C-alpha cells in the first residue's frame, strides 16, 4: 500500500536510533520525536480494565523490531570464504612451484590439463563461488541499508562500473580458460603457461568480485533509494537529513 510521503527528521549523529527504525515494524514514537515511549498499554474509558473487568495478562512479548538487514553477516561470511579461496589458490601455486617439481623451462604438458581443471575448479567451487555469492548478496543489502541511512552514493555510476568490471572479469576468465590449451601450447615453457593461468585468474577474479560488489551495492542502493529519498534539512537550531519514503 502506498501511503503519502512522510518527512522524518533524522539526527545526523544518531545512527543507532535510525537503525531501530529500519525494520518492517511500525515506527515508534521514539523514532519520531526522540522521547521515550511507554510500552505499557494506555487505557481509555472504553477499555474493560477501566471498568474493573479482569483482563488476562499478555502472554506474548511485545513485538520487537525486525533485525536490521545491513548485510554485515553476509559480507563477513563471504569474506571468510573468499579468504579461504585465496589461501587455497596461493597454496596451490606454492605446490606447483615446489613439491610438484614442475620444470619451469619445459613446455607445458597437455596431460596435466585435467588435473589443472580439477584442482583449480575445486577451489573455485568450494570457496570462491560461494564467497562471491555471499559478498554480492551482502553488498546488495549494504547498499540498501546505506541508502536508508541517507548516505549519498552515485549508485548509477557504481552500477556502470560494476557492470564493466564484472563483464571484463568474466570475459577474461572465460576466454582465458576456453583458450588455455592453445595459449599454453603456444607458450615456450611451463613458466609462461602457469603465469598466464594465474595472472588471468587473479585479474579476472579481482574484476569479477569488485564488479559484482559494485553492481550489487548500486542496485541495492537504488532500489532502497526509490523508496526512501534523503535530503539535507537545515533549520534554526538543528541540522539533519530529510528522509522521504514510502511506508
Amino acid at each position, binding site marked *: 500500500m502506498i501511503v503519502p510521503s512522510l518527512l522524518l527528521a533524522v539526527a545526523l549523529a544518531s545512527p543507532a536510533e535510525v537503525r531501530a527504525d529500519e525494520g518492517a515494524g511500525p515506527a515508534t514514537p521514539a523514532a519520531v520525536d526522540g522521547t521515550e515511549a511507554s510500552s505499557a498499554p494506555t487505557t481509555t474509558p472504553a477499555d474493560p480494565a477501566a471498568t474493573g473487568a479482569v483482563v488476562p495478562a499478555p502472554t506474548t512479548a511485545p513485538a520487537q523490531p525486525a533485525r536490521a538487514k545491513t548485510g554485515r553477516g553476509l559480507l563477513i561470511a563471504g569474506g571468510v570464504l573468499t579468504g579461504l579461496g585465496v589461501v587455497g589458490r596461493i597454496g596451490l601455486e606454492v*605446490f*606447483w612451484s615446489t*613439491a*610438484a*617439481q*614442475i*620444470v619451469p623451462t*619445459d*613446455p607445458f*604438458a*597437455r*596431460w*596435466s590439463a*585435467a*588435473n589443472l581443471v*580439477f*584442482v583449480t575448479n*575445486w577451489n573455485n567451487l568450494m570457496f570462491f563461488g560461494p564467497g562471491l555469492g555471499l559478498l554480492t548478496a551482502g553488498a546488495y543489502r549494504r547498499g540498501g541499508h546505506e541508502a536508508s541511512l541517507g548516505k549519498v552514493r552515485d549508485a548509477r555510476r557504481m552500477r556502470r562500473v560494476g557492470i564493466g568490471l564484472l563483464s571484463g572479469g568474466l570475459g577474461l576468465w572465460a576466454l582465458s580458460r576456453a583458450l588455455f590449451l592453445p595459449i599454453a601450447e603456444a607458450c615456450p615453457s611451463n613458466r609462461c603457461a602457469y603465469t598466464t593461468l594465474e595472472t588471468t585468474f587473479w585479474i579476472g577474479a579481482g574484476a569479477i568480485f569488485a564488479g559484482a560488489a559494485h553492481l550489487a551495492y548500486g542496485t541495492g542502493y537504488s532500489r532502497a533509494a526509490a523508496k526512501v529519498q534523503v535530503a539535507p534539512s537545515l533549520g534554526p537550531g538543528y541540522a539533519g537529513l530529510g528522509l522521504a519514503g514510502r511506508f
Partner: protein
Amino acid sequence: MHAHRLTLAALMVLAPACADDEIPEDLGSRPEDEVMLVDSPILQHLAAALEDGATLRASDLYFAERLRFTAAPDPSALLAAQASEHAALPPLAEPATLKVLTYNVGLLNRWYPFTHVGVPRYVERRAEAPARLLADGWDVLFLQEAWELADVERFAAEAARQGYAIYSGSEDKHAQHGLVILVREALIGAAEQEFGEEQFAAQREIELFPGPGIKRGLIRWSFTHAPTGRRVHLYATHLTAFPELWQERDVQARVLGGRAKSHPDGDVVLVGGDFNAGPYYPEDRFGSAGEEVLAGWWHNAMMYPLMLHYGGLYDSRSALQPADDVTRMQQLLLPFALGPYRDEPLAGRCDGIPHDTFTGSDCNSLYFSQYGATEYPARLDYIFVRDVERHVRVVATALEYTEPLDFGAAGNFELSDHYGQSATLQLE
C-alpha cells in the same frame, strides 16, 4: 526412499567409471583359454601350486576366487625347458646380429592433486640418457617411462644425430603410456613399415585421473630387416605396476600375447618392456610400509607364464641358460623383516647376490630410495621372442646400466631406477 534411489542411481552412474576391468570380455574365445594348466608345460607349475590346480584351465587364472595358492609357483622347469629347447636348435647359416635393449629409463616426474610422483634425479638423468643409450651400439631399443614429449624430443634429436628412427605413438597417447622404440635406420628395409598404438582396456583407472595421467598400453613397429629380408614386429609395453594389481597385469599380458601371436609364423616378433612382475616369489609375504607385511606375491608369478602361453613366446634371458630367478630369490634374507630391508639395500646382501637377474633391485640406489623394504627385488624387464620357424638365436644376454654414473655436482647414481635387459640375437 527417494534418497536411496538417488544413491543407487549415483552409484550406477559412477561405478563403471571407477571399476577396473579385471576379467577379459572375450575370455573363453581363444583356444589358449581352454588349456588345462596341467597339460601345458608353461602353466603346469601353477597347477602344482594351486589348490585344485589339476582341474583349472588358463581362463580360471583370471578369477581371484578360484585361486588358492598353497605354495610358491616354481618356474625352474619352465626356465630350464626354454634353455634346453633353444640349445637344441641348429646354428644359423648366415645370420645377422641384432642387439636389442629394453630399458625403463625412469623419466617420471609428474604431479597430481597435492602429490608428486617421480623417480629421483629426473633433471640430471634426462639430460644424460639419450646420448648415452644411443651411443652404445644397440640396434633396437624398447624404452619405457619416457613420459614427457620433451624427453621424446631429446631422444628424437639424438636419434637423428646417431642414425636411428624413432616411434613413440601419438602425442596425446604417448604422454599416457610413455613408450618409445628406436631402430637403427640402416636396418630398416624398403618395404612398408607399419606402426600401431593401443591402450589396454584393463587399467587402474585412477592412474589416469585424478592420478598422474597414465594409461598403460603398447606400441608396435613392423618393418623388414634389411640385412635378412625378415619381417620383424616390435612391441614395447609397460604393464600396470603394484603387486596387488596382478589381475590387471595378467589381462594385459593376455592382450599383448594375442597381438604377438597374430603375425605369420615366418615373421619374428620381439616384445620388450617392463612387465612389473617376476617369474618367481619364494614367499607370499614380503615388504611393508611399516605396518602389515604385504601378502599376495604368489599371484604375481602368473604374469610370466601367461605371457609365454598367450604369445607363443620364449624368454630371451632364459634361452642360453635357465634364468636365475629362483636361485637369486632364495639368496634373499627370508622371511621378510622390515628392519634389515629398510636399513640396507637387500638387507645387506647386494655384494653377495650377483647383479645378473633382478632388473628392479634395492642395489640400485634410485630403486632403493623409492621401494626399499616395500617390494621384492625381481626381474621385471624382459625381451620375449616369438619365432615359430626358428630364424632367431640368442647369443648373449645381460643386465645393462647397472653401475652408478658420475653426474658431477649432483653426485653418483644410476641412469634409471631399473637396470636394462639386453639380448644379442642372430637373425636369418
